[in-house]
């Protein structure tokens, strides 16, 4: 068993498993310092004599970052009376005395311990480590995944057959912007859960239509909508601000929607608000009357709410009272860091659409075409990379903590992201901070 670890690595923890007895059963603890657990370390390298050391292990249940000073065995309790074990390997193993690359290629570690009261359950386990040259981690994929977790895609571009962007007049003096998105039944992919059991209007109200009009500079948000079935019926109406209280509204809307042509697999229809880069309503939309292939996605409403919150700059704090926390991160810091993420996501909508398409085919085959020219895309990608590097430098620790909070509440199913309680906590905090202003004043 072996892991690859880069030279000059620090704070290195390794998952290990222990077995005991003739049948090599998994050892589930408990481990006490009285077991006198120790580690035997072998250093191996071509052309060098074997080096062997024994070290006592410090047994701890600490959850703080491993400092990398001494050999440690970290214990974690799990349900079903299980324990997970991590071996902390000192930083000195990964560098030589001059601070450069170590002379050895492989480090082999073996932990042994004997419970004082049951010596028959003497346990052992270990791993081999192959040392590798250090490489720099590209930041963009991590940034995209962070953004995808907190601002998940409700309706991705690859589930859209086509779209139509039109105006709708519920009354002679009133004009609304209407987006119909026809769905594609992809036999290879599951339908997004956003349309199934976790469909919830609260996720869609203020959802962002990312890159609806490339190069527009602002954004389009969802005010309300409905589902248009193959049988030409409208269902799933939502959004109280589009005029649903008017008795004739749905009939007129249904007529306008069906006037856009039949749908093969059903379609979502959204009433949109167009906003400029400062968040103000009222810029005349470009691209109205357009039909064709989709080049956009629809993203969770938290993206707009956090972005708008950053513009209002409202923070309500009572003197002497600590603010609410998200995990161990103060909510205000979390919102500030995510606000910076939202700025980049919205500011680079067109580029990110291209990147997401590329990620489906291994990052290399971009089929985005002339949404951006080749040189322009390269330049914007470099800009984004610089901005992400700056964000990681300034708020990287907060973002790492946020990811950890998110992961603990995420069951490793992609559809859990949309129903994740962390998103609700953030949305509730923003609602308490800004009331209705985010929704109605801009």
């Amino acid at each position: 068993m072996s892991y690859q670890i880069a030279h000059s690595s620090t704070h290195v923890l390794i998952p290990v498993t222990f077995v005991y007895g003739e049948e090599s059963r998994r050892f589930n603890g408990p481990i006490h310092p009285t077991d006198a657990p120790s580690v035997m370390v072998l250093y191996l390298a071509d052309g060098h004599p074997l080096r062997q050391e024994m070290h006592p292990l410090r047994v701890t249940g600490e959850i703080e970052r491993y400092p990398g000073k001494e050999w440690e065995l970290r214990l974690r309790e799990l349900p079903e009376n299980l324990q997970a074990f991590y071996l902390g390997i000192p930083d000195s193993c990964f560098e030589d005395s001059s601070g450069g690359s170590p002379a050895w290629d492989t480090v082999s570690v073996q932990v042994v311990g004997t419970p004082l009261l049951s010596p028959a359950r003497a346990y052992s386990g270990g791993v081999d480590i192959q040392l590798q040259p250090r490489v720099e981690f590209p930041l963009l994929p991590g940034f995209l995944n962070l953004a995808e977790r907190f601002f998940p895609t409700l309706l991705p571009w690859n589930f859209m057959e086509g779209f139509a962007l039109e105006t709708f007049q519920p009354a002679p003096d009133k004009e609304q912007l209407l987006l119909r998105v026809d769905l594609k039944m992809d036999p290879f992919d599951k339908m997004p859960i956003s349309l199934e059991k976790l469909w919830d209007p609260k996720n869609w109200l203020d959802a962002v239509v990312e890159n609806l009009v490339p190069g527009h500079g602002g954004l389009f948000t969802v005010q309300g909508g409905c589902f248009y079935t193959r049988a030409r019926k409208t269902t799933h109406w939502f959004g109280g601000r589009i005029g649903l209280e008017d008795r004739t509204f749905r009939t007129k809307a249904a007529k306008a929607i069906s006037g856009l042509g039949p749908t093969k697999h059903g379609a979502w229809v959204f009433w949109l608000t167009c906003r400029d880069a400062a968040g103000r309503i009222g810029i005349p939309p470009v691209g109205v009357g357009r039909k064709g292939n989709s080049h956009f996605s629809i993203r969770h409403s938290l993206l707009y709410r956090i972005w708008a919150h950053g513009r209002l700059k409202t923070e309500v704090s009572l003197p002497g009272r600590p603010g609410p926390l998200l995990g161990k991160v103060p909510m205000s810091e979390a919102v500030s860091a995510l606000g910076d993420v939202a700025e980049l996501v919205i500011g680079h909508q067109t580029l990110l659409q291209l990147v997401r398409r590329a990620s489906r085919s291994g990052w290399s085959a971009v089929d985005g075409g002339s949404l951006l020219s080749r040189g322009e895309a390269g330049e914007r990608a470099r800009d984004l990379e610089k901005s992400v590097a700056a964000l990681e430098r300034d708020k990287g620790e907060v973002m790492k903590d946020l990811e950890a909070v998110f992961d603990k509440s995420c069951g490793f199913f992609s559809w859990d992201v949309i129903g994740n309680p962390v998103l609700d906590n953030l949305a509730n905090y923003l609602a308490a901070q800004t009331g209705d202003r985010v929704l109605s004043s801009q």
Partner: protein
Amino acid sequence: MSVLILSNSRRVLLPLQLHGSLQGTPPDLRGLLVSEVKAGGGTQEFFAPLSGSGIPAPFRGDRWCYAWRDEAGIPSLWVGFPDVVFSAHIDFRERLSVEALIGESATWEGLLSVARLEITLKPPPGLTLEAGWGETFAPLSPSR
């Protein structure tokens, strides 16, 4: 056994290393114990319960699943990983350990580990927007 996986890999199926020889019908797994170490020094572990064997074809990378296979009388255990496990984050996962656990039997109480796999995650590839630039979509222009 250890394998290298590229971050952002999708629809990953891997064989686990069995601890010993299996007698008779391969047992149903109760779940997988996953321990992971992140680049920032944090750890996370969880128990992913499993219900019944079977890996859908095609495997979509949307959930944990497993299947026993038997080639010439030699059993092997394959596990399907959800894509999100390999997602590259700002603080991305560096090392993963996956243990397959079975439930109690006549001779054993609690959970018994039958197979294990260790994974080193390699950094995701960089962004190469220059390659494969097609001309699929026409740019939008104001129509009114």
